[in-house]
């Protein structure tokens, strides 16, 4: 049995529970292992997740799940509040950006003692396993590998009779391609490219092709003011060449919510995103979508992409059911039937056996995602160290700075040093 909670049901449920307790017929909880599962995502992810918990509970009588899911931005305040209240869930969906913070504060449990027992990781991808480690200890099990990717409106390109850029295109090619697009495009008001000058993953990808990381292993900035100036200048040139959507339109996409991206608003046929999101983007786009890699920084440069653990499962440090939790994670990542329910919605499964089991069952678009991540080739570089705790705040500041440049309030020459100073201050404040 799985209990699903959204806000309304929670209200009704808790009222009913209170009423039941009041008249002395409280549910018999004593002999059951009752686990709370918290994750972010939409309804599609929830359906798949609960499909797996149902499968698990039917094979393991006596175990029940209380599942709850929220949007990504609402998720972190909720998890932090529950953790602060000593009430953290048993199974926690964890992000690469937050895992260091939660591990360092002992809010999630190390999983090493379960490896080889409840958790069998023999055929698990080594790079994905490494991504879940903090200070040499395993704190999270990757639920799927993904990579940054551009969502592309195939239908709009087909209507224009134009080829989607191949994997070797670079930022330098965009003006010529945009010119072709502007002469052939059949969609009124649709510019060629999203303005991703404020997108931290885009900057990360571009810097890596220049041989620089966004953050060093000790959590410092891996780039210099000149890099940021170059980046903003490149986008300013693209803007001047009529390649990009207007800054006003781009600013509609304030939070990377899929509904407000340029591709969904039909302002551009491309949007910067992640490979596992094709399913979610397609769900709200009437046109057929596909995906390609981010542009190369220079013709021939590579190594910008990496196979990122899209998300982890971690166990709450205060959980009473750590071993059962580890067993559930094992089921989630290795069981073939579970894999068929989950598909590639959280990324490409990291267990070889599960990956092979699901491959024949995938729909065409899931297939695209699988092939994309498998065939990155020279675009692929090593996994960068997990970002420092204040990275999220730096990302917010970067977006605001990019808008200052896009709206003409600051030149790229001034914005580079200004941003580096701002980011340095944010990092040192978080470290103190």
């Amino acid at each position: 049995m799985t209990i699903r909670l959204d806000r309304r049901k929670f209200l009704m449920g808790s009222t009913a529970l209170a009423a039941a307790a009041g008249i002395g017929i409280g549910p018999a909880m004593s002999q059951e292992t009752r686990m709370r599962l918290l994750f972010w995502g939409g309804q599609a992810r929830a359906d798949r997740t609960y499909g797996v918990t149902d499968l698990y509970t039917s094979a393991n009588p006596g175990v029940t799940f209380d599942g709850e899911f929220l949007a990504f931005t609402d998720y972190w305040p909720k998890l932090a509040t529950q953790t602060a209240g000593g009430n953290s869930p048993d199974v926690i969906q964890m992000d690469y950006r937050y895992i260091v913070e939660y591990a360092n504060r002992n809010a999630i449990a190390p999983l090493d003692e379960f490896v080889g027992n409840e958790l069998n990781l023999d055929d698990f991808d080594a790079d994905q396993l490494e991504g879940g480690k903090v200070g040499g200890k395993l704190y999270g099990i990757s639920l799927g590998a993904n990579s940054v990717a551009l969502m592309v409106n195939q239908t709009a390109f087909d209507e224009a009779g134009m080829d989607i850029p191949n994997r070797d295109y670079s930022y330098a090619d965009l003006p010529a391609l945009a010119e072709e697009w502007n002469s052939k495009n059949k969609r009124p008001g649709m510019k060629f490219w999203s303005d991703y000058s404020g997108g931290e993953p885009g900057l990360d990808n571009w810097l890596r092709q220049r041989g620089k990381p966004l953050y060093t292993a000790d959590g410092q900035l891996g780039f210099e003011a000149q890099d940021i100036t170059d980046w903003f200048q490149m986008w300013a040139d693209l803007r001047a060449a009529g390649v990009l959507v207007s800054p006003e339109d781009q600013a509609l996409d304030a939070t990377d919510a899929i509904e407000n991206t340029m591709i969904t608003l039909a302002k551009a046929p491309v949007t910067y995103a992640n490979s596992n999101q094709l399913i979610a983007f397609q769900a709200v786009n009437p046109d057929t979508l596909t995906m390609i890699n981010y542009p190369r920084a220079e013709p021939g440069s590579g190594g910008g992409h990496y196979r990122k653990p899209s998300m982890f499962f971690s166990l709450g440090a205060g959980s009473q059911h750590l071993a059962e939790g580890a067993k559930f994670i094992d089921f989630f990542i290795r069981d073939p039937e579970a894999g068929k329910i989950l598909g590639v919605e959280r990324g490409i499964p990291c267990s070889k056996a599960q990956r092979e089991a699901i491959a024949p069952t995938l729909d065409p678009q899931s297939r695209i995602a699988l092939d994309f991540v498998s065939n990155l080739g020279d675009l692929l570089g090593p996994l960068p160290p997990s970002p420092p705790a204040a990275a999220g705040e730096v990302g917010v500041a970067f977006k605001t700075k990019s808008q200052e440049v896009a709206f003409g309030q600051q030149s790229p020459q001034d914005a580079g040093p200004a941003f580096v100073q701002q980011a340095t201050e944010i990092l040192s404040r978080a470290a103190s």
Partner: protein
Amino acid sequence: MTARSMHETNRVSSAGRALTPSRWSRIWSRNSAGYLFLLPWFLGFFGLTLGPMVSSLFLSFTDFDLLTAANWVGLSNYERIFTNDPKFAASMRVTLFFVVFSVPLKLAFALGVALLLNRGMKGLGLYRAVFYLPSLLGASVAIAVLWRQLFAGDGVVNDALALVGIQGPAWISNPNYSLWTLVVLSIWQFGSPMIIFLAGLRQIPQDMYEAASLDGAGKWRQFWKITLPLLTPVVFFNFIIQTIEGFKSFTPAFIISGGTGNPINSTLFYTLYLYQEAFSFFRMGYASALAWILLAIVGFFTAFSFLTSKYWVHYDD
């Protein structure tokens, strides 16, 4: 509480005598029913208002981050806010701009509509209800979402402007206009000050107008010499309430900017910045300090208004 017991309680405390246990029990036995009925309110006040306020005051001197125990940091949160926080200054500017423009415009609009409605037209009740409606919906998420749709680049507002040949900008996502859309949203919610103005207008004695028109004063002059001066207590009340509301405004900016305060921090209301510090970056201690500063600022403005009120508010008694 009966009038008699209230009187006696006042007498007891004003006499300054110590309240001995027997005295307490006497008060209790007389007023127990009243206190019992007040109990839900007491629970709410102590549990949900005073308790959190006290702990927030304590937290404002710590570095509490939700996940680890709070460390006492003395005044350093306050020190940073006043000496080294550009976002504090930016959000204060945005909030002051919002208050300075939205409050007077909203009051003027509310007064204008109240004057119209006060002319005793047919179906007054209906108009009053209709004009009040936006205030009821005011702070709701749905209205903010609607506003976002209306003022988006290809929203209804620009469609209407296109009819008269004007190509409107993307109101909500252009830093030059985004704050103005929030000001307009606030003005649109003029209902509750309007109702209060209307009640105030009803209390102005008609014979004053009759006397004035016999003396040859026109409508305009009557407004400046009779209506407005006699209405100043109501204006004052509305002004205070709306100023406090203005400083506290949060939901529209949160929804319209997706919680970011962008573009370029142009809609970064003080409360939104406070929310970001607390729930995006988990600096609960710092956010608590920001909250207390907001309370102090609102308190200052209110006290200042009260101090100046004796120069411009006319009570007829």
